């Protein structure tokens, strides 16, 4: 039997030597992506370690003052920057979460396909607006025309966390909307029909059946949006200011981790100085924060996804 079978089986042609080389070249392309990761980690780690040799790691993570250009090599406490980033993330969620979720539910459960075909590309356009342009919009419209008109000129500073939050919030709407909508659409319609059969209204079906069933996808989208808000640079650097401080006042100027990088680079710190190395210490903090959020988001999807037949 065995011999007969091997006689009959058709062997796929052996790859020629040239082909083996091609496949190896392709493999190198794929592995290059690992080189990129290694490069990022190496670059960040190297200068971060140098930074912590010259500047205490404890005072970096517990210090409440960030002043890289102050005398004696500067003061580097990262908490004010984390405080600024936290303000932006929370503010962006406050704006982006309701809008993004409403859009997702509307697109998935309510809209006709004609409306969908208009709305989805529109969201893609919003996602494609360069962040520096969104920053311009925040500085020249959101602050003067929106915030100052509502809360008063004296209350709202020219650069303020609220404008940055609105800008970043608008940027995360497409992320939350598209990922959540995908999750909601993949909820089988039999669940919806069962709920309708029990006499549910459309609102009840949406809120009590579809949203809970799609919760893992929604949660993942929110975490991704937060990660994006942490890493957003230009809109925040333009509209939210460059004043690192410990505050929860949304109407004053703050500074985020990313804006601090932009500012030090803008000051053109010479290589090897403490200031220059501080760039990479912030970069490492940023990298670890966003990586943790992205991994968490992927894990939430994997772990809590409801599988329907």
């Amino acid at each position: 039997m065995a011999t007969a079978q091997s006689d009959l089986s058709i062997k796929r042609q052996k790859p020629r030597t040239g082909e083996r080389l091609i496949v190896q070249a392709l493999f190198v392309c794929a592995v290059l992506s690992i080189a990129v990761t290694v490069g990022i980690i190496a670059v960040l780690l190297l200068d971060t370690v140098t930074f912590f040799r010259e500047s205490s790691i404890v005072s970096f993570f517990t210090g409440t003052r960030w002043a890289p250009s102050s005398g004696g090599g500067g003061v580097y406490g990262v908490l004010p920057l984390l405080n600024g980033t936290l303000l932006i993330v929370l503010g962006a969620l406050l704006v982006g979460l309701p809008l993004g979720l409403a859009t997702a539910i509307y697109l998935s459960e309510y809209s006709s396909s004609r409306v969908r075909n208009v709305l989805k590309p529109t969201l893609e356009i919003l996602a494609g607006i360069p962040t520096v342009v969104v920053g311009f919009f925040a500085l020249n419209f959101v602050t003067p025309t929106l915030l100052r008109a509502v809360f008063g000129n004296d209350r709202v500073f020219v650069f303020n966390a609220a404008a940055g939050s609105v800008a970043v919030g608008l940027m995360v709407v497409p992320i939350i909307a598209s990922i959540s909508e995908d999750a909601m659409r993949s909820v089988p319609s039999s669940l919806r029909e069962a709920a309708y059969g029990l006499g549910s209204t459309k609102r009840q079906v949406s809120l009590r059946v579809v949203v809970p069933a799609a919760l893992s996808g929604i949660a993942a989208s929110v975490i991704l949006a937060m990660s994006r808000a942490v890493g957003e640079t230009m809109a925040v650097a333009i509209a939210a200011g460059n004043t690192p401080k410990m505050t929860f006042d949304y109407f004053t100027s703050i500074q985020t981790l990313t804006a601090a990088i932009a500012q030090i680079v803008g000051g053109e710190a010479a290589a090897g100085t403490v200031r220059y190395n501080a760039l990479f210490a912030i970069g490492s903090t940023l990298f670890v924060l966003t990586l943790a959020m992205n991994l968490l988001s992927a894990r939430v999807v994997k772990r809590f996804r409801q599988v329907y037949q």
Partner: protein
Amino acid sequence: MSASTEVFAPGALQRGATRTPAKVALDAAFAVLLFVGTIVGVIALGVLLFTIYDNGWERLMADPGAFLSNYVSRLPARAGIKAGLYGSIYLMLLTALFCFPVGVGAAIYLEEFAPKNRVTDFVEANIANLAGVPSVVYGLLGLGVFVRFFALGPSLLAGSLTLAVMSLPVIIVAARESIRAVPQSVRLGAYALGATRWQAVWTQVLPAAIPGTLTGAILALSRAIGETAPLLVVGLPVVIFNLPNSLDDPVSALPLLIFNWTSRPQASFAEAAAAASIVLLALLLAMNAVAIFLRNRFSIRW
């Protein structure tokens, strides 16, 4: 009538089935709320575009030729975007040159040749994570590796390599999707005619996957070209008065100009920033139009 209701358990009916006016109103209110939430995003986009138009159109149209062909200036009225516009186009072309072949190569490997093992899993997880790294961190990578370690300086080469590295995961994902969309029967047909795996990929799969890949690549490039943070960190200049003649020459970019002008207090620079934004948005729009055209014109429906 009353007899038929008694068939059901009373509690079950009262829960959802009774459509009281209050409940109907609540449902309608919810639908309106969702629609408003959706439309707010659209309105915000509209207001954003109008703000840019309102601030920049006059400045752009006052003398479009001069605005496009002048270099930057301390006098807002004379400032132009030549260095930024050409710089962005140079950066875009080089970025495409660097990351398209590598990205497509990686995608072909992962879709067609990669064995199911730990290395492959690791590469895939790695690409997914790279896509989530903030662009400013890619800037630090460019600063540390290209500008300092390879001593390229804040040059055209360093800038485009940084953007290429940043766009790589996006292009890989796009290319993989369009390769995956080619049905297995195409490959099997090629094998049946005696093709080797590579011949099947090169002559059948790749041509079919090219439109989708190009579309994805152009979209990735249009994102890269709108990025400011990595170029800022790499240290590309704003104030230069010639276009790059070689890869080692410094180059500027449109988003850098916009950022620089936006950061200045004078209103006339804000107008210049808005005018430059209009040009940048037009450039992106053109790229997206090409991408959509390619998708509609050349994509194959199986």
